[in-house]
């Protein structure tokens, strides 16, 4: 019926489990069903030299469209990846690109601006680092760490 009608937009799959009874088959069906529903969720594997914010943004745009609500790249996850990338001079610019993306996706996160500022320091871009720390300070005026970092840079 589903194939014959060729319904536009409908994404479906059938699996038979000859080893399971009617009462037991829900357990494996929920597992495989969730696997099927969310099979595009993860970012396809990509190496550290090729990763950039455009690839990530496009992936999450497609997910948002498929699932019908805005899905943002997780701040903490991509910050973690970026911290790894900025350790190597070869991938430093990729790391900074991801950290810039985090500040766009999470404009009220002082942590995102602090992480970006620290990466600019690593790259030797002092003015950009100061601007990012200032922005972080506006978002978290109580932070003594941000004030300290700004002082270090401005001296």
């Amino acid at each position, binding site marked *: 019926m589903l194939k014959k009608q060729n*319904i536009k937009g409908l994404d479906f799959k059938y699996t038979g489990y000859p080893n399971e009874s009617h009462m037991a088959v829900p357990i494996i*069906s929920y597992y*495989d069903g969730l696997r099927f529903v969310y099979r595009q969720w993860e970012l396809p594997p990509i190496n550290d030299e090729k990763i950039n914010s455009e690839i990530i943004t496009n992936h999450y745009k497609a997910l948002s469209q498929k699932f019908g609500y805005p899905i943002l790249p997780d701040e903490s996850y991509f910050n973690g990846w970026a911290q790894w990338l900025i350790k190597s001079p070869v991938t430093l610019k990729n790391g900074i690109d991801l950290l810039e993306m985090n500040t766009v996706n999470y404009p009220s996160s002082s942590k995102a601006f602090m992480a970006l500022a620290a990466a600019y320091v690593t790259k030797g871009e002092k003015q950009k680092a100061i601007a990012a720390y200032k922005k972080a300070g506006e978002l978290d005026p109580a932070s003594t760490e941000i004030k300290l970092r700004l002082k270090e840079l401005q001296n």
Partner: protein
Amino acid sequence: MFNAYIAASPSFWWDQKFLLKLADKKLKTIPVLPKTLFFSDGNEGASSDSQFHTDVY
């Protein structure tokens, strides 16, 4: 109602395939249906020619 559905061993045979007939009729009036569906059978319906799923598929 939802974006995605998982139907584990659904009893589509019930009342002389009442649900399948209803779905067949309804789906003809829906041109686009952006939904995801996963459905399965256990050992009563998993043989390749079983009407448990061939009717739906």
